[in-house]
């Protein structure tokens, strides 16, 4: 999808959130000089093209009691990585799952997933459980818990 200047204006206008009012798209349109119908049509097109991955609420996981977050990294043979990635993505508590390049010799891992839980022990138990269920015992992995969070502003667009 080729984004027009009007699309870019819309992308910027809603990035921090949709107005909490009965006609939110009309309100957005008023701010950027479009009518409601045009705003809705453009947002739908952005969704269909995948520029908007999803629309909805974004939680603060710490505030919801998910205090432990682990990045679990796996060194999966290349011919199995897509199948393992698909299977991990279907597990409860896996909130992100990506294939990334290895950086040998220091970093042999090519599959990354995030697992959130109420505390570290629960996250570790959960990792053991999925390792067994998906038959990943032979796949080398490491669990990197997060410590301090230094910066979180999210990406900004436009």
């Amino acid at each position, binding site marked *: 999808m080729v984004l027009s200047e009007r699309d870019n204006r819309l992308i910027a206008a809603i*990035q921090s959130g*949709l107005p*909490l009012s009965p006609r939110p798209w009309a309100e957005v349109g008023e701010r950027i000089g479009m009518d409601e119908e045009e705003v809705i049509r453009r947002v739908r097109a952005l969704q269909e093209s995948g520029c908007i991955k999803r629309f*909805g609420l974004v*939680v603060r996981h710490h505030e919801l009691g998910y205090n432990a977050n682990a*990045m679990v990294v796996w060194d999966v043979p290349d011919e199995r990585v897509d199948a393992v990635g698909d299977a991990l*993505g279907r597990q409860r508590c896996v909130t992100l799952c990506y294939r990334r390049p290895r950086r040998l010799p220091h970093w042999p891992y090519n599959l990354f997933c995030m697992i959130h839980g109420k505390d570290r022990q629960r996250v570790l138990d959960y990792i053991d459980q999925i390792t067994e269920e998906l038959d990943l015992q032979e796949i080398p992995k490491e669990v990197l818990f997060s410590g301090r969070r230094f910066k979180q502003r999210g*990406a900004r667009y436009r």
Partner: protein
Amino acid sequence: MDDIDRQIINRLQGGFPVSERPYREAAAWFGLDEAELIRRLRRLLDDGYLSRFGPMYHAEKLGGGLSLCAMAVPEEKFEQVAGQVNAFPEVAHNYARDHQLNMWFVLATETPERIDEVVEEIERTTGYRVYNMPKQKEFYVGLRFQV
């Protein structure tokens, strides 16, 4: 937080109608009226359970660059290097993790080419190597945070 709040959080992480009266449409899923759903969403935002209510963009499709990067920084230099790294506006977030590669940050740039430039600038400023690991494939993730 009551049961209906929990249902709202679980369901609305997965999507929201794009229509003239989206709150009225979604309110019906929970047996609420439009005003009550709006009131509850405002409270969940005010209380800090939600960071926002809106779109999740696909950075690359919007023409931007996105990558996960890591560095191995000696403990005694960590604060100083974190300050240097976070001063780059392209650094979207930065977490310490317990590993030899102990600093993990996401770069979000206006163009894909800019990622490599920022990586080099960070290496030059800090004197440490940056391991740049852009995603090659994103796997579908079904469930979100269930409360």
